[in-house]
């Protein structure tokens, strides 16, 4: 994207970070993945750590994240992003390493890795995009799907009896001693975006201090699977997801030094 010349007397106050490539993103219109990508890359740019940051995105809609984030990246098998990230971090302990995982990935097939990576306190950032469905494969139930919610595998709405309860894995993670900083954020309004950015920044700064795993849940949307317009989806999110997945910090590091 060419940046247009400065309009006379005007200055740029906001533009896409250099840590995003110019490749147009394949996400559906209004999808929260794009915002989360951008905000994370803004932090990487602002911290000046592009050359020391390595990202891992597994299968899920964000599988092509490496096309958009202008940093070294690995694509991981479904559910294993945090294990892959641990492998990287263990051999390159001075780098900033993050995983970027969907709810299907992190809270279903990858549950074991999630719990154990945090329990070991791997010094990585885990970004957890909770959109309540399997977006990429066409909108099947995720562990985080709300009760009553219709998906392609719960066509009559999710029922406790057969499919169990929606899983607040972030709450579990927050209780592990290996967790350094655990927070739940969103991306659908200017305010939540600002907060998310602060959270990412904090998480990456903690990483330097080797205090354990930082875990940032982003309660996001999937307009396509939810079969809503982006605006409707964001409204639905506030009304339905937030009551069950309330925003805010679940764990802060013991000391701030």
């Amino acid at each position, binding site marked *: 994207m060419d940046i247009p010349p400065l309009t006379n007397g005007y200055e740029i106050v*906001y533009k896409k970070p250099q840590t995003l490539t110019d490749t147009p993103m394949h996400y559906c219109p209004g999808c*929260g993945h794009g915002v989360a990508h951008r905000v994370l890359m803004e932090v990487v740019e602002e911290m000046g750590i592009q050359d020391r940051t390595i990202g891992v995105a597994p299968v899920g809609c964000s599988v092509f994240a490496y096309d958009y984030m202008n940093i070294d990246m690995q694509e991981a098998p479904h559910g294993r992003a945090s294990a892959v990230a641990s492998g990287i971090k263990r051999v390159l302990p001075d780098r900033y390493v993050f995983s970027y995982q969907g709810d299907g990935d992190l809270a279903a097939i990858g549950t074991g890795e999630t719990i154990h990576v945090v329990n070991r306190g791997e010094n990585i950032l885990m970004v957890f995009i909770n959109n309540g469905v399997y977006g990429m494969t066409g909108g099947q139930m995720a562990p985080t799907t709300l009760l009553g919610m219709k998906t392609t595998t719960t066509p009559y709405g999710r029922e406790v009896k057969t499919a169990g309860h929606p899983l607040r894995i972030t709450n579990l993670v927050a209780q592990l001693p290996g967790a350094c900083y655990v927070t739940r954020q969103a991306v659908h*309004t200017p305010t939540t*975006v600002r907060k998310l*950015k602060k959270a990412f920044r904090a998480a990456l700064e903690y990483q330097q201090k080797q205090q354990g795993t930082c875990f940032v849940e982003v309660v996001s949307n999937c307009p396509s699977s939810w079969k809503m317009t982006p605006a409707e989806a964001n409204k639905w999110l506030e009304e339905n997801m937030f009551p069950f997945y309330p925003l805010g910090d679940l764990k802060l590091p013991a000391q701030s030094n």
Partner: protein
Amino acid sequence: MIRGTVVIAEDICKGCELCIEACPQESLGLSDKINLKGYRYAVLVKDNCTGCVNCALVCPDAAIIVYRQKKPTKTAGPQVEVPI
């Protein structure tokens, strides 16, 4: 009131309208035209933008650049101020 403006990459925009929702000034709307990807894209429809950046913050496709009038009191040099 601070004056601002936005430049929207029309080929990148997917017409999700989230910027339109987010703009406190109601400065934005959808164009009638369709871009190469087949989307009606977002455009400035009023000249009252304050450069508040809200639209850019919520744009999932990083399609928006926001400008603000330079504060005349400040010293020279094109300072890029990132407000968040």
